């Protein structure tokens, strides 16, 4: 029979994982929505954020500095990638865009492997957040609890930026009609660069804040990438609310199935994705025409 405290614990894990996936997937989905490019290097950017944070932590001993470093480095990678590489691919066929972002992902991963080796590195949680917190009927790792809060704050921040700031307005308009944005006097290439930077920053931030839970290694991004794809197919490509919804659904699916058999979580994710593809081809919250 089901061990209820185990079950609640896993549901909780699912929420934490879901929030994380929602954040990373939001980054991927706004990049696709605005630029029309699927960033196959997104998982690698998650990984890069983790490493940048770890480096900062090794030098300063401060978790907060690590988080800032990871996020900023993520943004830098995104901006430079768009400016130097992606910009020249907008008029090329989709396959070429996929190939080049895939290749960049490999280059990022191998560069990290070259400098830091393949063994995983740990980033300990900040001193105030180690250990376990009693939650009435169960005990839960303190940092994971905090992580939920941290990621939730980041998601809300992203939401506020997108829906309450001028920049966010430009991005949302750009997702809808980037040509019209250009017609209104806003340099749309600068918008693209910014969006890629924000998307990569979301991934990098997630990479470092998740480091105390799952240690960082050059290939951590691969699993994340696949999960992100499933999330945005379920939620709807190009939709921020879709990424959030899809993220929590995916997080719960992974957590709950791992209770029964860890190997099946991927199968269930894939089954969920297939179900959505058959019943609602554009995702739960997506719109048509975003192929």
């Amino acid at each position, binding site marked *: 029979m089901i061990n209820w405290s185990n079950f609640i614990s896993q549901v909780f894990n699912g929420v934490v994982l879901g929030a994380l996936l929602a954040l990373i997937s939001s980054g991927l989905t706004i990049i696709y929505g605005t630029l029309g490019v699927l960033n196959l290097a997104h998982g690698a950017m998650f990984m890069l954020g983790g490493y940048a944070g770890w480096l900062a932590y090794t030098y300063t001993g401060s978790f907060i500095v690590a988080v800032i470093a990871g996020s900023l480095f993520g943004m830098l990678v995104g901006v430079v990638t768009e400016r130097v590489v992606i910009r020249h691919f907008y008029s090329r066929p989709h396959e070429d865009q996929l190939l080049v972002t895939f290749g960049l992902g490999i280059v990022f991963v191998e560069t990290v492997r070259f400098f830091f080796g393949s063994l995983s590195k740990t980033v300990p949680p900040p001193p105030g957040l180690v250990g376990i917190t009693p939650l009435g009927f169960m005990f839960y790792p303190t940092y994971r609890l905090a992580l939920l809060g941290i990621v939730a704050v980041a998601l809300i921040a992203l939401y506020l930026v997108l829906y309450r700031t*001028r920049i966010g307005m430009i991005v*949302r308009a750009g997702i809808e009609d980037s040509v019209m944005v250009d017609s*209104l006097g806003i340099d749309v290439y600068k918008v693209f660069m910014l969006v890629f930077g924000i998307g990569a920053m979301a991934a990098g931030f997630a990479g470092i804040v998740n480091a105390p839970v799952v240690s960082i290694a050059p290939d951590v991004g691969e699993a994340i990438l696949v999960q992100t794809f499933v999330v945005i197919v379920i939620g709807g490509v190009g939709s921020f609310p879709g990424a959030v919804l899809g993220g929590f659904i995916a997080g719960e699916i992974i957590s709950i199935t791992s209770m029964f058999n860890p190997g099946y979580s991927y199968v269930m994710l894939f089954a969920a994705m297939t179900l959505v593809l058959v019943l609602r081809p554009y995702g739960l919250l997506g719109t048509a025409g975003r192929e």
Partner: protein
Amino acid sequence: MSLLEVSGLNTYYGDSHILFDVALTVERHEVVALLGRNGAGKSTTLKSLMGVVSPRAGSIVFDGVEIAGRQSHAIAQAGMQLVHEERRIFGSLNVEENLILAGLTATNRWPLERVYAMFPRLKERRQSRGTDLSGGEQQMLAIARALVREPKILLLDEPFEGLAPIIVRDLLTTCRALAEAGQTILVVEQNISAAMTLADRVYILNNGHIVEMLTAQTVREQPQMLHRHLGV
């Protein structure tokens, strides 16, 4: 010096040759209409001016500066605005956000109150999302959005198409007021009578060639001149 001087304009879609050596001028404070059957290339002309489509050859001198082939945002900064035929309202943004967005990079922008004074209907609907607006309201918003930037020239691509006659009448009144206040306008229209109430001069485009230029006076006195090119 004319505000807008176009000469030798040749625009292609891929290798489909749409505009053949198009030439026209627009003086300050004038309203010029560009007429022609559909497929003639009227929309393409406006899009070439605004940089939405890059002409392959030709010169577009706007307020003394050559703008042919430049990116749209630079042309918008130079003071040109195009109200697209499809209107292209940002459906996920509300009315007010559409207007604010338009003014973000403008050197002189209309305060919202001024926009709402000219389009009271938009004030009523200021919080409505773009997708919830009717056709006439969307057209109003598209024009208002262009005006927010206080453009030196306003390009209108079939502004009256698909609208009920009563709304066309309202819009016409607004446009006439704009023209009387000195706004330079280049309007493309298939609704000839509507265009003729606004225009000081007309150019006629046929199969991508400018075939005629007439003053409004001439058209009023000899309407058969229009008939020749635009009738059946």
